[in-house]
């Protein structure tokens, strides 16, 4: 594996990790809002 390939690999892995983080944070927010609505907060 060349240096360039390693750099590309790192970039793509970072992008995937950020995407997973965004999805997890969105899920936390989603469950929080669903709970509030189910409890009749709105």
């Amino acid at each position: 594996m060349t240096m360039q390939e390693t750099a590309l690999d790192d970039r793509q892995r970072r992008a995937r990790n950020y995407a997973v983080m965004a999805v997890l944070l969105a899920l936390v927010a989603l469950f929080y809002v669903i709970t509030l609505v189910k409890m009749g907060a709105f």
Partner: protein
Amino acid sequence: MRPLSAPLDAAAGPAVADYVALLKPRVMSLVVFTGFVGLYLAPGHLHPVLASVAVLCIAVAAGACGAINMWYDRDIDALMRRTKDRPLPAGRMAPGEALGFGCVLAGASVMVMALALNVAAAALLALTIGFYVFVYTVWLKRRTPQNIVIGGAAGALPPIVGWAAATGDVGLPALALFALIFFWTPPHFWALALYRAGDYERAGVPMMPNVAGPAETKRQMLIYTLVLWPCALAPTLLGVAGWVYGAAALVLSAAFTACAVRVLYDPGERAARQMFGFSILYLFLLFALMVIDRVAGLPGLQG
């Protein structure tokens, strides 16, 4: 023919865009829209947040179906021009990764639907995913030219899921929306199959033009467009849409039938290509008009 996958391009691994491609975003958009309309037309009031969650679940489930379908069909996808650049046949992603991604999304969408909305909607969503994966993709697609006719039920279920999310049961108008998409699917797919017959032939998928020939396919397409007339008019007759929608449904159905007649007499591909394009517009406009009719409070049988 299976198992087959291109050697994995291990240098880079899959990009985020490859995961998005697994979800078949274009197919998803029509599924989401029809699911939303089913939910919107249903009687009663659903909190906007919960309605959004229901639509999100339908979208994620549709994406899950796309991912699992791409995992199973990776061998034939590599043989067709239209699909050979997908993440698996192109070697940008390992097959197991796509399968895992699809299964997680499928499970999550059903679970959230059950927790946030109701069990009936979640069960129907699970049925939709199961039907698409096991009945259409695994069982029918490679075995019979009726593949997309019977398999079309999976694509027709989202409005019922949306309706059930709002009401907890399945009403007659929801079944009318199901019938509309169900009978729209064959002429829609066969229009595509008429000018992509070579692709399907190479992949060994028994689409109607390859098995019964173009003439018989065109004849059946015309019949399906005629069956669509009462289906398109049903929302008005059942009182969930007004007469403005009803009139537009008749005009659009006449135009769709005219497309099928043109295809019948066109020995080339041009009419089939146009019919495929119009078929998407036809379904989109019908569902959009049902919503507009409701929003504007236009007169119907019950108003």
